[in-house]
Each structure stands twice: as structure tokens, then as C-alpha cells.
């Protein structure tokens, strides 16, 4: 409170109120920015080189198995109305260093489509039984089936779940030897353990899904997704969770398995391999493509040369700019000093 004295209206004489705060006043001009440009340029080139080298070391093996072209292994399986198995052979000339990540990839598949993305019920996926009986409106038209029975898991995302399955065989001496595929931990830990919960009910998991129907496209209900591992069923199914995390771009890959066990812990040795594909998922209707990808990863993720190149380009650009600046500076500053 100011006193009611003579200078009651007198403004406070502080640096702030008088706008006299100490301030740094950078004046951008050629002379000042040249060192900055040089520094940034050099640093970027350094990082760029490091990234590029790292990225070069990563091995990637991609195989398209859509079967759109005649003569490709899965050409006969295009009609997905009947179960079909096709085999893709490939060979490695040298050791594919481990741990090897096994992805399936889809192209021209718009998982980021707006209505598609919202067509799910997160409450249901968190195991709230109330959401079982009355799924969210957002799931429509995959909310109830024609008999008005609730669909669990509801929605388009779940309904369109990728259901091809793969088996990898290492052909040793002509004999196919199955490569163990690790299906654990391919989804985010938080998803598997926190976000996706199976309903807590007495009795079997199946009883929780009573009075509900499976998604229309699914061959089996949710509680029976993984026939081999009972604990990997319901919503807490790795493949399901991976699928439910929508891809950002229309060409995407999703982690299918990792090869970390047994003889293959250090990677896939050189040799011939056979990939046995259970071909269920139709993509040709929308000109989609399916592929499998084997890749190992570095500290910065999968193989991506772009970032290294970008750093290199920007770094060099900075150097070029600094040279331009130097010329500008020389032309407009130096002559006058001589005057």
C-alpha cells in the first residue's frame, strides 16, 4: 500500500516498471552470426557422419508376399475366403546379426483414417464389464451385431485385426528347422500391463465374454486368440495390442516377433530359410501390400539413412552460408574501415 502522502500517485521506480530491466540485445548482423554458422555446420556434419555410419551397419531383409503378381509365392492365396498357406524362400549370405526383429508390413493401409481411429472402446479394452454389455457409440457400426448382441472388442480397429501368421524355418541340410519366434514383449509394456486388461471375473476368461459376440471378421473370439498360450488371450494378447496401436502413416510395419532364443540368439546364420505364411488378410481389394521384414536395430532404431543425410546436408548448408556471410561482411564492412 502506498501512503496517502504527497506522492501517492508516484509510480514505483523499479527497473521492471520503468522497463529498464538489464537485457541482452543481440543485433543480428553478418559479423556476429558467422561463428555460429560455422559451429553449427561442423557439429551437424559430425553428427551426420555418425548417424550415417550407424545406419549403414543395420541389416534389413524385406520380402513382399502380397501375391499380386503372377508367379509370386502367394499368388494362389489371393482369395482369402478359403484358408491358404504359402511359403516364401530366401537365403542369407552372411550372418544376420541378432537380435533380429521380425515385422510384418502393410502398404497403402490407412490405419490413421479418422473414423477408423476412433472406432474403438478403450473402456472395454480396459476390462470394464459395463462396456461389454453396452459398447461405446464410437464403435458403430461394429457396436452390435445384427442380433443386437454387443461385439467385444467392438469397433473397426479390432475388427480389422491383421490375422496372417508366420512360421520361419531354417533349412539345414534340406530339412526345415523351425526358428523359435519370441512373441513376448513386442507390445509396449504399459499397454500390456496397464492399458489393456482382461475383465476380472470368476471362472474362465470365456465366461466373461458371455452374451457377447466376436468381431465379425475374427475367426475366433477374443478369449481364444492365442491357442498356444492361454495367458496371451483376451485383450492382453500381444498381437492384438500391437495392432490396436495405430500406425502413423499408410505404409507401416508392425513388430510380429523377435528372434532371440536358442541358436538364433546371435542372429540368423547364413543359409536358406523358408517362411510359411498363413494367408488370411485381404489387402488387394484396396491395392494394399503385405510384406515381412527382418531387421536388426541400432541405438537409434531401425535402418534410416535419412537423418544422417539430413544432418550432413544442413551442416554443409551452414558452412556455405557462413561463407556467404563472410563475403557480405567483407564487402560491406572492411572497405569502410579503410576509409
Amino acid at each position, binding site marked *: 500500500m502506498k501512503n496517502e502522502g504527497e506522492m501517492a500517485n508516484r509510480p514505483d521506480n523499479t527497473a521492471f516498471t520503468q522497463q529498464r530491466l538489464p537485457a541482452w540485445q543481440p543485433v543480428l548482423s553478418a559479423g556476429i552470426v558467422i561463428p555460429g554458422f560455422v559451429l553449427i555446420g561442423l557439429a551437424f556434419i559430425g553428427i551426420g557422419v555418425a548417424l550415417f555410419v550407424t545406419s549403414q551397419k543395420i541389416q534389413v531383409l524385406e520380402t513382399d508376399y502380397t501375391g499380386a503378381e503372377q508367379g509370386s509365392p502367394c499368388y494362389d492365396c489371393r482369395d482369402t475366403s478359403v484358408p491358404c498357406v504359402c511359403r516364401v524362400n530366401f537365403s542369407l549370405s552372411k550372418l544376420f546379426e541378432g537380435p533380429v526383429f521380425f515385422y510384418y508390413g502393410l502398404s497403402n493401409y490407412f490405419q490413421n*483414417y479418422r473414423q477408423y481411429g476412433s472406432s474403438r472402446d478403450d473402456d472395454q479394452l480396459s476390462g470394464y464389464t459395463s462396456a461389454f454389455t453396452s459398447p461405446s457409440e464410437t464403435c458403430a*457400426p461394429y457396436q452390435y451385431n445384427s442380433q443386437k448382441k454387443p461385439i467385444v472388442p467392438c469397433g473397426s480397429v479390432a475388427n480389422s485385426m491383421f490375422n496372417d501368421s508366420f512360421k520361419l524355418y531354417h533349412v539345414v541340410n534340406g530339412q526345415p528347422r523351425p526358428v523359435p519366434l519370441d512373441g513376448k514383449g513386442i507390445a509396449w509394456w504399459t499397454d500390456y500391463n496397464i492399458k489393456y486388461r482382461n475383465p476380472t471375473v470368476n471362472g474362465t476368461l470365456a465366461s466373461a465374454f458371455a452374451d457377447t459376440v466376436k468381431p465379425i471378421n475374427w475367426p475366433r473370439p477374443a478369449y481364444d486368440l492365442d491357442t498356444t498360450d492361454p495367458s496371451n488371450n483376451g485383450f492382453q494378447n500381444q498381437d492384438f495390442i500391437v495392432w490396436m*496401436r495405430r500406425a502413423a502413416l499408410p505404409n507401416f510395419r508392425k513388430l510380429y516377433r523377435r528372434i532371440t532364443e536358442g541358436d538364433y540368439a546371435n542372429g540368423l546364420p547364413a543359409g536358406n530359410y523358408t517362411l510359411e505364411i498363413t494367408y488370411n488378410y485381404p489387402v488387394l481389394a484396396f491395392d494394399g501390400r503385405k510384406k515381412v521384414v527382418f531387421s536388426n536395430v541400432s541405438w537409434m532404431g531401425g535402418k534410416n539413412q535419412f537423418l544422417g543425410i539430413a544432418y550432413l546436408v544442413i551442416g554443409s548448408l551452414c558452412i556455405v552460408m557462413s561463407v556467404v556471410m563472410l563475403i557480405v561482411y567483407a564487402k560491406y564492412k572492411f572497405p569502410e574501415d579503410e576509409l
Partner: protein
Amino acid sequence: MAREIGEPREAKSSKVKQQKKRRSKKESKTRTVHANILYDHAKGDDNPNRHYANNKIKTTKYTLLSFLPKNLFEQFHRFANVYFVFIALLNFVPVVNAFQPELALAPVVFILSVTAIKDLWEDYRRHRSDKEINHMDCLVYSRTERRYVEKYWKELRVGDFVRLRCNEILPADVLLLSSSDPDRLCHIETATLDGETNLKQRQVVRSFLDLDCEFDPCKYNSVIECEKPNNDLNRFRGYIIHRNGRRDGLYKDNLLLRGCTVRNTEEALGIVIYAGHETKAMLNNNGPRYKRSKLERQMNVDVFWCVIILLVMCLFCAIGHGLWMYQYGDKRPVFDVLSPEGTDLSPALSAIYLFLTLIIVFQVLVPISLFVSIEIVKICQVYFIHQDMELYDEETDSQLQCRALNITEDLGQVQYIFSDKTGTLTENKMVFRRCTVAGVEYSHDANARRLAMYQEMDSEEEECTSHGGTLPRRDSVTSHQSAKVVLRSQSTKSHRRTGSRAEAKRASILSKHTAFSSPMEKDITPDPELLEKVNDCASQMEFMRFHSQPFSHLPSDLSDIIDFFIALTICNTVVVSSPNQPRQKVRRFELKSPVKTIEDFIKRFTPSRLTSGSNSSSSSSLVTTRSASHKACSSILSSPSAESTLTKLDEERSRGGTLDHAFSPVPPSYDETKSLIQEEGELRYEAESPDEAALVYAARAYKCSLVGRLPDQVTVELPHLGKLNFELLHTLGFDSTRKRMSVVVKHPLTDQITVYTKGADSVIMDLISPPATDHSKGKRQRKILFKTQNYLNVYAADGLRTLCIAKKVLSKEEYASWLRRHLEAETAIQGREELLFESALRLETNLHLLGATGIEDRLQDGVPETIASLRKAGLQIWVLTGDKQETAINIAYACKLLDPEEEIITLNAESQEACAVLLEESLHYIQAKFLCNASTDQHASRVYHQDYSALHVPAPACSPYASLHTVPFLVHRLGLVIDGRTLAYALEKSLEDKFLAVARSCRSVLCCRSTPLQKSKVVKLVRNKLKVMTLAIGDGANDVSMIQVADVGVGISGQEGMQAVMASDFALPRFRNLQKLLLVHGHWCYSRLANMILYFFYKNAMFVALIFWYQFYCGFSGSAMIDQWYLIFFNLMFSAFPQLITATLDKDVSAATLQDLPQLYMNGQNSEEYKPYMFWMNMIDAFYQSLVCFFIPYFAYSDSDVDLFTWGTPITTLALLTILLHLGIETKTWTWMNWASIVFSVCLFFTVALCYNASCPTCYSPSNPYWTMQRLLTDPLFYLLCVITPITALLPRYFYRACQGTLFPSPVHIGRQLDKLPTEIRRHLLSQTRVKLGSLGALFASRSSSFAFSRPLTKQSQRQEKAVAPPQPKSTEVTDTPRSSKHPENHLGPSQKKEKRSHSQSQRSRVSALTDLLDNTQGPLRGPSLTDTDTLPYTRELPRTGPVLEPATLTAAVESSDHAWVTSTPLLPQTECIQLTLSRPGVSPVIPNERSSESGLSSDQRFLSQEDRMEHTQTSDCPKENTLKTTFL
């Protein structure tokens, strides 16, 4: 008779109606006012006054109930708000919704409520001030209680009787019916209305004039008919109808206006005529205009563009979506979702839905938070302007007030300043400076020194006077008036109590001003020489008196001196009082009737009266007088006939020889008073105008002091001679048309009837009797005249207000014949004012010049500097004043508004046609003179003006001025002076374009005698026609409408009243504060806001474009990779603070540099910071940056298993970082707050993101970003992106900015570079480069020149830095007066010289071709005027024969130049020759009309008899129909 009165008025009103076409039929009728007390019993319906507005005022916009709907309604006027609500509502439609509806609603609600709260607060303030005013007290007569009772102002009704006490503010427009003043006058101070602090006299209505008794409301039964409420302060017409059928006219002199203050009058009674909103004061208060700043208008255009961009983007996407859908045909992809009903949407329909969805998604493109941010920033700016120490005035303890919160940035874009004069430029304190008596100049050097000293210690002294105060004087008690005074002091107190603090402060300020008692004004150091002469003269006179010698033997120069001082002392209306007595108006017992009735004159010539007067005792009080004469009340309307008066006069004249009593002993009554005064100490003088007081104080310094003034007698104390009583026969008051006042007295020593006249030199010098040609006396006379005129010129050049003092001795016969006519005029009912005017003109002829005085109306501190600085900043300054022309011109010179070196065009026209001709002439004149040698280069034109005969060589091309809107318009070194009446003509539709064309080509414009409405009209005209930003500054209520009309209204607080302040957008303590307000705060506010707005557009476009690019990768489905929370809160939270801080605190150039280099202000005037192309450049940059921010992550994450929001969140982060760094590039000063805000923003984003992403695993559908950010933070790729993306995005801008700083720095850039230098060097450099900067208006006009300028500057600065600041002795010397460097050429850098040379060369070729031609054409034009210059002052009206603008010559000049410049200068048609002849005197058919608009009776003048007119023309020199005065110095 009544009809006769009525008709001219109706004729007048119909004329008004023609002028103001909007007046309705109803208004032409009159208003009838009955006394309310007659209808007290009939409560409502029967009261004839019931239809009139009551006195309650209400200026608020809302009531409690109407606030919400009305405010929302008003807010929805803003397009943006409608848009936002529309978007929010769109979200509730399921098919198209993009976000959770509730979430989408949040920003809109937030924005609406912030604005609503602000509006509510403002309205509450208005409500409080209304309430305060409505609840002020006043005394109203109550029939039931048979006395005056206290009532609130708001309870007052039309027809109420009110009793007004001294120092009370008038609650409504009141017709004065009675006054305690024996003269039946009421003094009012109209400071709050028209800004003039002098006291105005108002007269009791004629019918009640003769009333000797107390006015009794109960006996009042007349009916008043008057005109409908109107806003003309200077007009009031009507008549009062008494029960006996008699009618009396009512004039503006009878009306007391609301808002005025009663002064020097114990008590006045009146009836309310207009109340509340119908009062003239309120009608003059045009409602406030909603002001929208120029920047905001410009911004709205770009907002509109944003909407278009938005629609285009949405349309594009919608079409894209339709096509995308179409390509799938019937094959439904698995990721396509059917409608909820399971049906398939057609591509077209889904495209339409998508269009709406995208509007929601892209809504941020139209910057929702921009409007709120602007409001917040403006409030902060207002706060800082408020807090500025330099805008605080210690004397009045007042600081700057920002009353308009939304136009701070307009301060930085002002192009025209319209200023009031009195109280705004000047202190309104008159100080005697020097004088000339009988041709001898007394320079009063000591006095000048004393004044100079005061100038320095002004502040301390001001404080003293304000604390010493004069309030006790007003509340004091005199012995014989105790009862009344007690009452009054009580009422005064109660009034004070109810008033607010501001009110009290105002009262004290006012009293300070009316007192004219600051030592500076009072203590005049006499000139020793003159003092000696006065003593000498007085002693001689004493000797002569003693020896009964006739006084004619006195040497004429000595008698002139004593006459001069007597004139100074008595030729005024100054009232004497002593410090402890409010007024020294001690009345003589028998003086029942007021002065100026015929009886009175007769009485004065009868010795018996005098005797009785001397016998009367001072103890007789007014009260007893009144009660004694109470019985005479009924016979109020008797008036003696003129004949009887004259018979008496004749009788008296026959006894003329007996009049030797003139040197009569001082009446005892006076002695008592005198002794009282001497006990009390020094006398105080209360004057109608400050200069009167100044003159009286000046005379007192020479021991000629005014010691008493009675209605019929003035007492003067002279050295040696003691006290002398001058019989006051007549006072012919000051009149703006006559420009002089006279008193007719009987000189006690010489016993002659003497007329003392005091007036403007221009008129007095013409009235001086032509000196006799024969003998030496005549020669001497001529010499005196010549010398005096020369000194007057000198005074005027010094900016002093000059007054001439003259006298005239009348013989008895002359006096009698004059008196006869004068009495006729006095008694005339119709046209009385005109007749009196004529009468005065008859008297004031053949005067004998005594001397002249120079009075200084002291300018406020720093006014000339401020004006110079503002002018350098490219501001046009016009002064609009109600003052008379001479004063205004003097002040204009003093404050350097007009330059003695420059030419002045004076426009005084008496009719519309004359005005048209004048304007034509001026236009042609300017054209002829400046057409081909006008110059933008100030120095060149300076050279030119110093030497007129030399041809002006370095002149650029001619100015094409025929088109009004050609910009830039060349401003010549010309001054334009125009008076109020001419202005009225010039503002007519047909002439306004011409007027503007003339005015805008003048460097300064001075409008004198302008009414408030005219002021606002001028401002409006300039604002609308020239499309410029205007600022009006004023201090009085007469400036209110001007202040409101201007784009920026500034009030000067603490001078007079609060009305100007209330109406203003900004209130300053002093005029000089305007410099900092505009040059510094204006510049800052503008550049800050402009940059912020541009930044906002960029920011939003950049952010939205990210989503737009994504549409190409999601099938144009309206999907966003950025979480909806980030989308909505990005603007409101994450990126909001740094930009607010920057927009509030950023200083592109320091305050010191901005003030030292006013040229930088042009930055804002030309809207350099925010040009339309900048918006598009920013948009392009935004799209580029968003491309970078989108595609670097895109490629970095392509072919990976990244999910939608794990990919989108880095993009959001990158966008945020880019946007913040972008702001960093644009930030000029980095305080810790900038750093903190940026760090805070980044931290806030991450904190919110982390919390949000950890808060709920199942919520926030559809993004459901659980643990996304946490995972990203462990990803090295994320960091790598964060490094490269912002740098890549900002590289071009950074590169551009860096190059700009070196290659083509803007003036602001240079200012900033100057800032970097140490203070000493900077000062030195500035003083050196000042001239360069000053000379370069071209700096801003062309890039190349600014470039040329910057190089030597930067070079110098570098050299200075390298020299490690050698302490130059020069620099310290220069720092004090950096403006004083006078040799521009010496400081020009080499490059500049070169440029100048080439410039002038190119011009020379063109100009030399014209040289001969111009020599021919301008020779006759200039020759005569040059010869005149030696003898004539510029304030003096040139006779028409002064051949400055001989039409023939002019036309010749125009014609010949026309030949030369056929192509480049479209000239006006040649018909002017015919029109020009109209203006010659004698040819004009219009009746000469010398009266000012104040009398407003032009139609009535037609009633003047032919004879009168003849005399009129004789007396008033030559009736100049119009004069175009063009003078040189």
C-alpha cells in the same frame, strides 16, 4: 414586441435548420418552462415540465440484468467471436465432430469471459462516476418548507429554483434570476466547459434586474419560452413572459451552464431550464466512439485472409477426400468405417462432412487466442505507460492515465496532432515582461532574469502555491457578513465532502489558477529607468497639484507615463480583495441599483450623490440595504425614460463648472477598508483574464496600485499623490471583435473625461489619431508611433502577447452627444448588443497612443522542444484554440510552431464566397510559389527562406497537389492561420477539399476562435479525408468533442477540470509528456503489437499447416497426428507466455535513442513493422517451417513401426521449439523474463505432456496417448530430431535477418546499433549525426538513401569502439544540447555529400530552365511584400492594398507556370480571375460583418440602420471583407 423578438429567432433557427439538415421539425419548436413550485400539488401529470429530462445522468452501457445478453451481443459483433462459437457448436454435431465437444468449448468460453469481465469493470467505473455526480448536493427551493433544501443533483427537475453559492458547480443549465451581487451579476468560471479560467459575467434576467429586494420564488409566476436543448454553448435565446403580458428577451448572458463554477458571487438564484442529458454541457459530450486501432483494422483484413486460406485448405482436403473415396469405388477397404447405420457414405457426402470437420481441426488458423493476447498485452502496455516515471508530474502528483485500453499502439502511428492552446501548450499564467511608453522601450532586463530564474525553480514554487492554497480566502469570514458567510462556508465544505478526491484536487487547482497569485506573476521587477521617471512625474504632479497649476504643463512624455500606468491600473475589470476577505466589494449605502442604468449616470453627475456616498458608513451591510428596499419589490419593471435622463444630464452640464470636487477627499468608507487591507497585508487581484491581472501587478510594481474598485469608482494609489478616485463612468467591456476594452473615467487631477483604451495592437494602432503634420509635436507623435510599432514587432517576435494602451480626452459636449446615443443603445430591447457595440465603436476613435506592453503567457516547460521533436518525428501539428488570433499567433511563435522565417497565410473571411475566393487564392499562391521550387529537403528550404531573393537551387520535382489524396503531399514551410468564422465556411462541404489542400501543404496550421464543435469537425475532416491517424490533445471541456473524434484523444490533467480527461483515451500531466508518450511508448506499443500480430499469424499457420500436410497421408480424412489437447492448448498455454512477455517487454530501440532520434517514429507512421506483404511473407515462412517440421520426422520415421501419436508428439514438440526459437530471432531485447518464459514454456509443455500421458490409460479417446511422451524421452531419435528440425526450419529467416542487419538495415536497426554503443559515444555520435538523420526524410522514403546513411554511421560507430572511447572534451559539451549543432554540411559523411551532389545536379538542370521564368513571375509577387516586411509586423492586418496577392499578378504567375508545367501540374480552371474581383472591397454585396460568431446574430445585423453602418465602416478602419495576409520576416 414579442412577435418582433420571436421572428428573428425563428428565422435564425430555420437557418440553423438549413445548416444542420438532420434537425427534426419538432426541434424548431420551443421549450416552455414553468416554475415547478406552482405545480407541486399536482404531482405528475399536470406539471408542464414533466416531459423534460431530469437531471440524472447515466453514461453506463449496461444494467445488471442487461449485462449478459447485451455484452454477449456486443461481443458477437466481433466476427472472430461468432466464428469461434460456430466452431464450438459444430463440434456438437456427431457426424463432423473432431474433438470432444466440451474441450472445444473451453477456449471460446475463456475468451468471452475475459472480455466480459473487462467490459464489466469499465462499465462499473462509469457507473461509479455517474453516481458520484448524481449524488452531489444542491439547494432547491421547496414550496412546502418555504426554503431551500438540500437535494441531490439527480433530483433536480426543469423548473426548479436553485440557489447557488460561491464555488459551487452548477448542476444544470440555470437561468439566472437573482444574484447577491449588487451589479446583479454572477461570475462563473467556465473552465470545465471551454477551458478558459477567467471569470465570465452573467447577468440577471432583465426583468429582475431592477428588483431591489430578495427574489422570492413564491411570487414568481412567469413563463419562460426558450429554444430546444442544443449543444451550442454560445447561444441561448428565448423570452420570459410575465403575468402582466410583458415579455423580455433572454440571452446567453442570462444562462449559467452546467459544469461551470460560481465564483466571486455570494449567492445566485435561478430556475432550471435544461437538466441532465439536455444540458448544453452534456449535449456537447458526444458519446464515446468505439475506437478500434489502425493496427487492429489492418489485422482484421489479415484475419479475413486467414479465413480464406482456411476455407481453401478445407476445400482442397474435402475434394481430395472425395477423390480418395471415389478411387476405392465399391471395394470397401477394411479400414474404412461405414456410417453408424452400416450404410455406405457417398464420396460427395463424406467430402461435405469432411469439410466441416476440417474447419474444426484447422480452426487455429484463425488465431483464437490472438484477440485475448492482444487485450492482455495492451493491458500490460497500459500498465507500463502508467508506471513511467517520466510521465509523472510531481507538481500535481498526477501521472499518466490510460483510459482507453485498446488503442495503445495507435500512439505509435499518429500523423496529425491537434492541440488546444491555453492550458495545453501554455501554463495559462500571464507574466508582465516589458513595455514601451511614449516610444521608449523599457526592456525590464531584471524582470526577464527573474523570470528565467523562476523557470528553473518552477516546480518548487508551484508546490508552494498549491500547498499554501487559496482556499482559506474563499471560506473566510468578514465581520459584517458573518451569517451569510457561515452558511456559505458550510455549504462549501459539504460540497467538498461529497466530492471525490479528484474533485477536491481540482478545486484546489482551480483556485490556484484563478488567484493569479504565484509570485512569478505578482513580483515584477521594475525597470529602474522607468521607475525613476514615474517617481519624477508623480512628484511633479504632486507639486503642480499643490500649487494648483494646470496639469497640461507637464511634459508630454511624463504625462504619458503616468497615464500609461493609470490606464494599466484602471482599464480592466479586476476586483480587489485582500487575503482574508473574499471580496472587497464594499458597497455604498445608497447604491441600490446596479451600474449602467441611466439613473446611475445621472447620479454621478450630481454632487449630492457623492456627498451622501462619502457620508455612508462601511458598516452598512447589504442585508440591511435589501430589507430596507424590500417594499419596492413589486415595482420591478419600471424604467426611466431616456429623455428624462438627458434632461438631467443637460442640467448637470450647465452646472459643469462646479465639478471641481473631482479631486475629492477619499471617502471615509474607503479609508476603513484601506486600513483593514493594510492590516491584512497585500491585496489580491481577481481578474477576468490572466493578462489583466498581470498588467495590474505590473502597474503596482511601479507604485501605481489599484486599491479598490467600486461599480462607479476606481481608487488608485500613486506615488507621492496618494490615493486618487477615478469616477468610473462607463466600462466598455472586452469584445473579441473590437479586440479592445475601454473605460470612461473622470480624471481626478485634470478633471477631464478621459477614455482609456487597451487592446490588441492591430486594432489600436489603426484607431490612433493621425498625428498633426504641421508642428514638431506631430513629428514626435509620428516617431512615437513608428517606434512603438517597431517594439510591438519585437515583442511579437519574442512570442509576447502585445497590448496597446491609448487614451482620449473627451470634451463635455463630445461626451454628451456620445452619451445620448449610448443611452439609447442601453435601453434598446431589440438589438441591444449590436447597438452597444456600435456605440463603443463611436467612442474609440482618434486615440492618443500611450504605450504598449508585452505579456508572456508562459509556455509549459519543454513545449517548443516537444513540438520540434514531434515535428521531426514527422507529425503535423495543428493548433486549434478558442483564443483570439493575435494571442494564438504569439503563442505559436513562442512554442516554435510557427517559425519567424516562414511565411504565414492568414485566412479571415466574412462570407462563404469570400472564403472560397481566399482558399483559391491561397492555393494558387502556394502553387505559384512552391510548385516548382518546393523542397522536401529541409535544409535546402531553410537556405531558401533565409535568402528570398536568391533563387532556390536544389529543388526536387513539383508537387502534384491537385488530387487531394496524392501521397506524399509536400509540406512547405508555410503557416496557415484561420479564424473561427472562416473555418466555419471552410468546413462547408463545397470548400472542405480546398481547405484541406491548403492546410495540408502548410507546415503548421493555427485555427483561432474555434468552437468546440468546429474543433471536432476539423479533426473529423482531416481524419476522414486524408485517411490519417489523428491525435487530439486538450485540457478543457471545449476540447472534449475533438478528443473524442480523434483516433487518439489525449487530455491534459490537472489543469482545468476533468472533462477532457474523462473523455480522453490518455490523460497526461503536461504537454511535454506527449513526446515520450508518442515517441517512446507509442513506438514500442506499435512495434510490439505489430510484431506480435505477425508472429501470431505465423505461429498459427505454421501449426495448422502441419496437420494439413498430414492429410495427404491419411486419405484426407481429417485425422490429426497431434493430440487434440495439444491442438487446443498449444496457443492458449504452451506458446502463449513467451510471446506475451516479448510483446510486453521487447524494446526494439531504447527509450533514449527513440527520443534522440524522433525520426524513428516514422517507422510506425508508415506502418513499417506490419505491412500487408509481411503477412504473406510470414505465411510463406510458416508453410516452409511446417514443411520442415513435418517432413523431417516423416522421413526419419518412415518404414518404422511408429504409431500415430508417438509420431505426432515429436512433431508437436518440434513445432513448439521452432515457434519459440522463431520468437527468439524476433526478440530484440532479452531480459531474464524472456529467458524464463521460454524455459517455462518448454518445461510446461513437457510437464503437461508427461502428466497428461501418465494420467489415464483409458481416457482421451481417440488418441489415448498413454505413456507416449515417456517413451519418446528415452528415444535418442527424438532428441536428434529436436536438434536438426528447428535449426533447419529457422535457417532462412535467421539468414535473412542477419543479412538485413548488414546489407539493408532499417532505421530502427540503426537505432538498435546505436543502443549498443556506450552512452558517451552514442551521445557524441548522435550529436554528430543528428543533422544527417534530420536531413534525411529520404531515409524513410528510399532504401538507397538509408543505406547510404547507415554506412558512415556504422563505420563511425566501429571506429569509436576501436578507439576505446577516448574521452573527448567535445562530447561532454554536446551532451547538454545535442540539438544545437548548427552546421549540417560539415557533418555530412562523404557518401552523403556525394549523393546530395548528384541529387542537386539532377535537379539543377530542371530548375535552371525555370530560373528565368520564375524571376519574372515571382518578382512582382515578392517585391512589394519584401518592402513591407521592414515596417509591418506579421500580426498586423495588412490593408487590402498591401500587394502581396494582387490577383492580376497571381494569375499571371499561375498562368506562366502553367505553361511551363503543363504536363505535371493540373491547375485549377482559370475562372478565378472573375472570382478574385469579388474579394475587392466595395464590390462585395455582403454587409460588412465584423462581429464574431460569438454574438451569432448575423441576421440581426441587417436591422442596423444605414447610418449606423456608415459609422461602422468609418470607425472600424476599412471593412475588410476578407484579408489574405502574407507576410515575411
